[in-house]
């Protein structure tokens, strides 16, 4: 971390302000205002049950996101339905290799935010490795944040 740039604020100024503001600051810290109600404990929300198909990895989120990743030849298609009430940041995908757990990022082409109430489809450029048969986990990202894994095709169903 580099040094911050110079500014007009000096240590003397800060020290003077410190004295001037002491009563205000400490007064605020010990104010006798009645506190509002306790912050409610976050109650777990149950995600919808897994929905799978032979062709697709399916992602559902209790907030109102439904995504489907369909592997097609050397690429894949990603559709995202956003019913969260807010725009969704641009989608991304990474996969874990079922053989060694190695992480590989797949590129969502022309990735863009998904407006509330809309469904968007994106092409996905897959890395050569892992092949589809060696996918361990496919993970959904929005704005680079990890939203969790897709549900894979179930055993006995060809992908």
């Amino acid at each position, binding site marked *: *971390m580099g040094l911050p740039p110079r500014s007009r604020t000096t240590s003397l100024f800060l020290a003077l302000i410190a004295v001037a503001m*002491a009563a205000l600051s*400490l007064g605020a810290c010990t104010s006798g205002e009645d*506190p509002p109600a*306790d912050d409610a404990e976050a109650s777990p929300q149950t995600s919808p049950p897994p929905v799978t198909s032979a062709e697709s990895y399916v992602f559902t989120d209790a*907030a109102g996101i439904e995504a489907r990743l369909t592997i097609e030849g050397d690429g894949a298609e990603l559709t995202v339905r956003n019913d969260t009430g807010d725009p969704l940041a641009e989608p991304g995908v990474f996969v874990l290799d079922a053989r060694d*757990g190695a992480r590989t990022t797949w590129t969502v082409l022309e990735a863009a935010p998904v407006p509330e109430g809309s469904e968007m489809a994106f092409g996905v450029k897959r890395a050569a490795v892992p092949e589809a048969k060696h996918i361990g986990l496919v993970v959904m990202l929005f704005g680079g944040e990890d939203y*969790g*894994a897709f*549900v894979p095709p179930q055993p006995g169903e060809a992908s």
Partner: protein
Amino acid sequence: MSVRPVTRWVCALLVAGLVAVPGPAFTQEQALEQQLMQTTCAVPTELLVRTWRGHRADRGGDIELLPQEPDFVGHGGLPHSGPWDYVAEVPLLLYGPGYIEAQGAVERPVTLADLAPTQGDLLGFPFDAPDGASLTEALVPEGERAAPPKLVVVVVWDGAGRAVLDEWPASWPNLEALIDEGTWYDRAEVGSSPPSTAQIHATIGTGAFSRNHGLVSHTLRIGDRLTDPWVARSRYLTAATFADLYDRHEGNRPIVGTLATVAIQLGMMGHGSLWGGGDQDIAVLREREGAATLGAEGISWNLTSNVAPYYRLPGYVNGLPPITEYFDETDRQDGRADGQWHELHLDGARAEEALRTPARIPFQTTLIEEVVRREGFGADDVPDLLYVNYKLIDEIGHLYSMNSVEMRDSVKAQDAELPALIDLLDEHVGEGNWVLALTADHGHTPDPNVSGGTVISPPAVADAIQAEFDTDGDDTRIVEFTQPTQVFVDLDEMRQNGTTLEEISAYLLTVTKEQVDEGQYPVTPEVADEPAFLAVYPSSMIDDLPCLEGKLPDHGSAEASTP
């Protein structure tokens, strides 16, 4: 005179004597950031290292809270959450004649991320753990070992950290007797903070800390929601476990299973059939369907509908003797045959109360024996993996504290079962054919009446923030949730109120114990005016602390803090 809020908090910290006067080269915002870094870097490095390993910007809270030990943040029961030694340090014994060196204590510091790659070495299937390395000094040299062991058993005594065992040194003679027959890591720790069940079991399974496996605490953020780590099955565990890879590599021929209590313990095993090419590994739990809390147990063995699609519950498990079968022997363990174990009733009509007594230990061991026998764990030359969690010690820690006589007797009862576990492995797998790794996922919190610690109330912390900063008059709160180590903040609402994480952190550094006292253990007048927190800082700051530079892999790298 109007003074900008940021200046106000710079000043407040100066007046409180918490920081030194910043140099002349800083803007007010930078000065505040520097001051927060200064207070944070005064924290012992090992506590910051554990916190960094547990931090994920996308999943975790927004503000870190660190009281001065022995104070802690808790509400409605004793938590075990924080970076302190008493929760971080755990027993770690490897035992297995022919496979594990009989050398007693080893002083090298290790973490539970080292267990998975050690399993890999034992089974000849190297596992490249993100944060761990094989405990090679524990292993008999490869050339001197026979074929891989037929079974590797990982046993977690939930909540039985070193602080608990050290508090009751006479209560675990059987474990102590095994130390010299195996390898005992005297400086083992979980590795990351906060150390709760979900994240540390996932560390055992993945060889990764929360930063890399994604389960950062029992409340985590997914997008804009706060949720729990296993509500979406194993979907939030976005790293491979050793069992995921090994089982698939062997064509799912190994028998892999977890015999535990609740789903948050499944991370030590893995994803089951959610993992590509994986099968439905055995899982036997007793989690209450639709429970409001993660630790809620039922009386029957089950899998909740949430996780059931990806694991297999053997149908015979509820045909085993019920827990009431073990009431008589439990009744006498506190020295009185009075239908109670201490104050808890051993009564079939109140069977769930009995889950807080040692009756649950033989009840579970009977299950283990039956599953090992009927499923054929260790019965052929394909090495199998068995994961076990015994949860009584954790329950007692929450209810009565680690200092209680109930804890003394729980540790004693848990330890007394160890020979039975070894006997059943010898009988069904064969002497010299198996390896045991015994550990704990965290310690427990000393009773404030013993430690003199102040218990800080999460709701009071939230209320203090609300009262100080949430002035826009709408119904949306700045504070979404407060847990023992973190505050989750609605960042949009925070900005709408014209404040920042730095200002909130600085304010919390000036809050006194009296202001946020939990009430159950009243704060004494001598300490009432002391600051409640040793350090408070925006969580993302942990990536930039100058005092951690050079002490951690990838520290300071943007990539290191993203999934």
